[in-house]
């Protein structure tokens, strides 16, 4: 992968100045030093520490071992939330990527009014997830929304009210998420497509490679930068999924659309059980830490191998 994060970690840009210590640079980046250290290091350490305590509304240091984690994983709310985030995450990611890519491909066919289409596809990204959630909740409202509207037209059996059924509510969320986010995927992918050397397209044509195969086997692998950006945006968005669900279903019906991030917030606010909330928060961090560690290892190994080759 060649996205931002990797370049950031892997490419050790040649030190441009070595001898003198650039005090001005240190002063200039003081906010970064403070924030990255205190928020993304110290605060996270505290999160982990508190997850081993029985902190109620206020943080304490009364350690209870793994009790919070035992409870966490035996709570059906959490299990449902974890299942949901996987399902929601994989679904939205796949649909978003495929739909966004298709849109970009179709947009790339020399169409008329491209800027009009682009604006239409992109505008939902400017809307907050709260607004998105409310708008879709309204459209999917069983009594006043799409369903009733179509029934009023005479098709009285028409049923489309995903949000009110346990099994389908999450699809409603996925649709709203796609609506909000696939435009930006399209924009990035389109930029990626346009960045592909036109002569490669010509070469493929002369080789007689069908268009779909050219996209699949030649162009997509050449768009790794764009794909990396899209993945970065989508993945970080998915892990934090909160606003959309909060506005659209509040985790319902029942607990059918609960999400891990909502679990955390619920426990540190309403349920006044910070220890439990912090345990859930730590679990949320785990996959991210894991991915970053694996990547760090992979890039170092790659760098070493490249070193041997060179």
């Amino acid at each position: 992968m060649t996205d931002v994060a990797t370049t950031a970690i892997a490419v050790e840009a040649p030190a441009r100045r070595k001898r003198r210590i650039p005090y001005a640079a240190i002063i200039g980046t003081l906010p970064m030093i403070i924030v990255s250290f205190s928020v993304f290091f110290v605060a996270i350490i505290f999160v982990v520490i508190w997850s081993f305590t029985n902190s109620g509304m206020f943080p304490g240091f009364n350690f209870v071992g793994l009790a919070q984690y035992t409870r966490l994983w035996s709570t059906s709310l959490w299990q449902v939330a974890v299942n949901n985030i996987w399902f929601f995450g994989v679904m939205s990611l796949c649909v978003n990527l495929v739909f966004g890519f298709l849109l970009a491909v179709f947009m790339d066919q020399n169409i008329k009014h491209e800027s009009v289409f682009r604006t239409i596809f992109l505008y939902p990204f400017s809307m907050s997830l709260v607004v998105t959630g409310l708008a879709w909740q309204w459209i999917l409202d069983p009594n006043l929304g799409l369903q009733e509207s179509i029934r009023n037209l005479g098709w009285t059996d028409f049923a489309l009210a995903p949000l009110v059924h346990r099994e389908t509510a999450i699809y409603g969320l996925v649709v709203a998420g796609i609506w909000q986010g696939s435009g930006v995927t399209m924009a990035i992918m389109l930029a990626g497509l346009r960045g592909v050397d036109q002569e490669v397209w010509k070469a493929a044509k002369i080789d007689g490679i069908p268009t779909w195969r050219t996209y699949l086997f030649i162009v997509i692998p050449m768009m790794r930068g764009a794909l990396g950006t899209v993945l970065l945006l989508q993945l970080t968005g998915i892990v934090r999924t909160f606003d959309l669900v909060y506005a659209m279903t509040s985790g319902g019906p029942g607990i059918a659309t609960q999400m891990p991030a909502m679990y955390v917030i619920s426990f540190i606010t309403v349920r006044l059980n910070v220890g439990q909330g912090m345990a859930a928060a730590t679990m949320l961090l785990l996959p991210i830490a894991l991915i970053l560690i694996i990547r760090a290892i992979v890039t170092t190994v790659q760098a070493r191998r490249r070193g041997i080759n060179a």
Partner: protein
Amino acid sequence: MTAEALDATGFAGPHGAKPKQLSWGRVGIYAFLVIAALFFLVPLYVMLVTSLKSMPEVREAHIFNLPREPTIQPWIDAMFNACTGRNCTGLSPGFWNSVKITVPSVIVSIIIASINGYALSFWKYKGAEFFFNLLVFGAFVPYQVVIYPIIIGMSKVHLFGTLPGIIIVHTIFGMPLLTILFRNFYSSLPIEIFKAARIDGAGFWQTFFKVMLPMSVPITVVAVILQVTGIWNDFLFGLVFAGTENIPMTLQLNNMVKTTQGTIQYDVNMAATMLTALVPLIIYFVSGKWFVRGIAAGAVKG
């Protein structure tokens, strides 16, 4: 060669442009795009027509119908009259609060992030990379994970629930992505520019303000768009950190929509929803082109 009649040039067989078999492919492309556009437009359309209807008309549940008697009363109500509890001020205070939060947050976060990106590209000191990697990690950390320690930290410095407090929170959480953006942008500039400035005797700050900053317009536009929409649309931080007197518009919207006075006023709710989305919408309509270009140029080097 076919038995086609000889043409003017005296050569038989195909000549000129390949006849268009009014390619079904083209039709398909436009059909796909138009259907997709409808999918994207329907919510906006429904919100708009609903917000222009009166409640009795809304209850007829023809969400696609144009309003019979268009009225902008719901918009006026949403902006100035709608109630949350005893307060019947509509969204207007929230609007100004959002402005109060967004403007300084955007400025502060972009200044800090651009300095970060600049220093990380040209003034690497020992340890800089470590802090940057922490930031990159921070880009992936769900806000909810660190929100509690930040509440505690903010209360220790007496900034919880204040305007400076919420500005700091937005700056903190905008920093990872913005720093990555600016760092990538500056790294893609030719190092010769930096060297020339150094030879001319410019120091850290002079080089930044006189040379780098004026060159950063494209990426700054992207950063401004991202931050304005991100901060304007924020819900979680507003809910937790803003304090009562700074309640942002999104939060007020949510309060208004979830509070019902008797029967739900869908028309007012929709007007309120549209009003809340208006500022970022306008920003996108006006500058969406730059955003697309900038995100292609600045965000990621493939």
